[in-house]
């Protein structure tokens, strides 16, 4: 007995792609599960200033001229912090950034470029890390390029 369908002409449309799709799908799922993208994390880079005394003292190279130091004292204040730099006394990161920007402008007018100013954050022992990072970020946002931490006061 012959079926009528068997007499119809049948063309292959190309190679069988099913195994390829299987393998490709497995690779895709593997990459999606194993890959770590880490897109939500980044880093604030700090330099350690050259110290001639105390822990971590380093011998300065010949002809080395010390940078102008700008100390920012940070202390806890309630749930937040208080930052003191020269005559500035603020407890808010935005205010600190604005004030530091003005200070940087004064440094520029006095002939000191930002890269020759070493900002030193001097925190109290119990200052929270997140507040230090806020102060740090404010200094960077204001345009200072060299920011480091000092020992606690």
């Amino acid at each position: 007995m012959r079926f009528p369908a068997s007499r119809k002409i049948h063309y292959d449309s190309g190679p069988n792609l099913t195994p390829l799709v299987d393998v490709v799908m497995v690779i895709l799922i593997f990459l999606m599960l194993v890959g770590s993208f880490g897109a939500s994390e980044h880093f604030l880079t700090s330099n350690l200033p050259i110290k001639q005394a105390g822990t971590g003292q380093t011998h300065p190279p010949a002809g080395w001229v010390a940078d102008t130091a700008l100390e920012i004292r940070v202390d806890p204040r309630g749930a937040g912090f208080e930052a003191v730099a020269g005559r500035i006394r603020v407890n808010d990161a935005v205010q600190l950034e604005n004030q530091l920007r003005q200070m940087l402008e004064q440094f520029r007018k006095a002939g000191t470029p930002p890269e020759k100013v070493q900002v030193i954050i001097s925190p109290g022992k119990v200052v929270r890390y997140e507040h230090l990072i806020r102060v740090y970020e404010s200094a960077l946002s204001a345009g200072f390029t060299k920011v480091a931490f000092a020992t606690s006061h």
Partner: protein
Amino acid sequence: MRRQPMPNIREGGVNVTPLIDVVMCLIIFFMLVAKIGITTGAEPMDLPETILGQKIEDLGNTLTLNVHRGAGNQPLVTYLPKDERANREIPLARNVGGKVHHPLLEVLKAARRNNPRFKVIIRAQKDLGYELIEPILQTCAAADLNNINFATAQVTELRQE
């Protein structure tokens, strides 16, 4: 002249060509973007959030130090030793037979000696006090490291100051 009719072509099933195109694009994307096989020893923690920050491309030159609050309000540092798969605790100072050793300092000094581009990544919980981070920074200073990176989480929403 009589024209030959076109043969009756029967499709074998669903056309998978667009599917393969899309999947191949996705695979190439994931292969380029995903960091596979790079384990820095970073432990999940609540990092402080910042808007500024930069990516570190040469993670191979870095050592990630995870700082926690340890017993007696002392810093507890963990890191991923080379050629190991699990993080290990490393003390800042250890008394062995009346002699004080500084394991973290020794590790940092050795890494600095072997790699001039060596840098440290510090990861700490955002509510940690500076008193626990300070000894790590002092150890880095003693190891003559001048490139220290603080891991922060990228801010996704505008801050309410």
